[in-house]
């Protein structure tokens, strides 16, 4: 199919999804506590977070009315943090979600993912997991600020890949310290029988803001696109760029489907303080309500207009960008409260260096 027709059909698809505005993906930031202190954390979580965990009952009460609007088995509750494994009641939370018909999954750094935890989460009906491995040992330990995190993550990967039940992927945040060792990391993951690998760049938000070692140069960004394209052609592992940003001419080389930021379109979050948002890493300015004050279903159904209609993003460098129709203002987490310019544009960076 010619590229322009494909792009046109995808724009129709995107507009249709926005019109439907059906929730299918719900983050629950169950805690702000974390057992690592990663240099790139978008949430700026810590071991001694002043906020406690959100009581599970509060979250469940907020989302149960969703069952009136959607078949619950079409919604995956993605439990995130902080580090969700720090919650002792995680299996009980997951089991209760399944009893109400929802699917559930976790995002973890793998540090506390032991065989016993693995067994208990599977028994409680966990269906998907994403685990971070941010390079070979030196690079991973540097980013995660922990010397034991690499070995623990590798053990967790072995457990996960051996499970026939789990839908999973391993994610890597690519930065200046690990970009040149991606080929070795790929071989390591293949040796651990990893089937799916998602690569990120690091957005200049949260703790990553102002850390130049975390931001790839334009040449390195192109190097990353070429690496992912090569790994996809190799077909030994399903590598892809995450949906974090539009990458222009590289789109078809690095992803299965064109870029589409679904924040507030099909994705919502309940944050640890009860805030109702789109994705957890989006600027707090875009919070749409709070479960302790508002009906979650009502907020989802009647608000989120700022994400469903993104014409306001045609400003700053986006105002004169010829790719705007395809990109639609990029990813929501790259917009600050001022709403006057996107924080960074990978595509523009690569184009200017070409």
């Amino acid at each position, binding site marked *: 199919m010619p590229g322009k027709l494909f792009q046109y059909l995808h724009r129709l698809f995107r507009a249709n999804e926005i019109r439907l505005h059906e929730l299918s993906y719900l983050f629950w930031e169950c805690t702000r506590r974390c057992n690592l202190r990663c240099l790139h954390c978008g949430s700026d979580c810590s071991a001694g977070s002043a906020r406690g965990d959100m009581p599970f009952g509060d979250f469940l009460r907020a989302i149960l009315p969703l069952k009136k609007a959607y078949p619950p088995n079409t919604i995956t509750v993605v439990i995130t943090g902080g580090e969700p494994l720090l919650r002792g009641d995680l299996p009980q939370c997951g089991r209760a979600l399944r009893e109400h018909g929802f699917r559930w999954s976790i995002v973890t750094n793998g540090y506390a993912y032991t065989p016993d935890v693995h067994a208990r989460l599977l028994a409680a009906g966990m269906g998907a997991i994403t685990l971070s491995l941010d390079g070979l040992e030196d690079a991973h330990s540097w980013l995660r600020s922990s010397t034991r995190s690499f070995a623990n993550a590798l053990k967790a990967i072995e457990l996960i890949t051996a499970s026939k039940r789990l839908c999973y992927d391993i994610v890597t945040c690519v930065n200046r310290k690990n970009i040149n060792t991606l080929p070795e990391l790929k071989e390591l993951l293949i040796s651990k029988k990893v089937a799916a690998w998602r690569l990120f760049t690091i957005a200049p938000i949260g703790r990553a803001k102002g850390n130049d070692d975390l931001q790839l140069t334009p040449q390195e960004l192109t190097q990353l696109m070429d690496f992912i394209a090569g790994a996809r052609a190799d077909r030994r592992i399903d590598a892809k760029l995450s949906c974090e940003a539009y990458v222009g001419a590289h789109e078809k080389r690095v992803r*299965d489907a064109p870029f589409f930021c679904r924040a507030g379109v099909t994705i919502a979050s309940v944050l640890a303080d009860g805030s109702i948002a789109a994705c957890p890493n989006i600027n707090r300015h875009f919070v749409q309500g709070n479960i302790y004050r508002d009906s979650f279903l009502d907020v989802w159904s009647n608000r989120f207009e700022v994400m469903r209609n993104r014409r306001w993003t045609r400003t700053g460098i986006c105002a004169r960008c010829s790719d705007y129709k395809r990109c639609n203002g990029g990813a929501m987490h790259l917009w600050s409260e001022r709403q006057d310019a996107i924080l960074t544009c990978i595509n523009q960076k690569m184009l200017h260096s070409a």
Partner: protein
Amino acid sequence: MKTFANKSRKFLQSIFKGLSATSLAFTFQACYGTAQDVGQDVLITGTVSSTQTGEAIPGIKVSVEDQPQYEITDGSGQFSVYALQRSACKVTFEDADALQHGAFLAKDTIVEALGERIVLNVSLDAR
């Protein structure tokens, strides 16, 4: 209006699925989230009791062959464990707490693990 949008979605999805490298291309994931769970599993639930007395037995480990997950029966002898759907699966019941609630012989049961939920009430012989 919504019906038309739903029909359009199915039509457009069918086009993109045909064009994409994997048929799962439209089971999306958020940038910092997991894949959507599209797997099939079954909830195996039930009660373990004593053949001799009929009383519920706590502390029995319930596991499924070739899968790492297990559950320990609670104070009412009840358990529930999710397992991969398959036409036949072996569920094993083993005494996991030594003599704390009596000593019982292990037992294997073959079940058809299809559908969403199966109920399995099992009695164990005292050792």
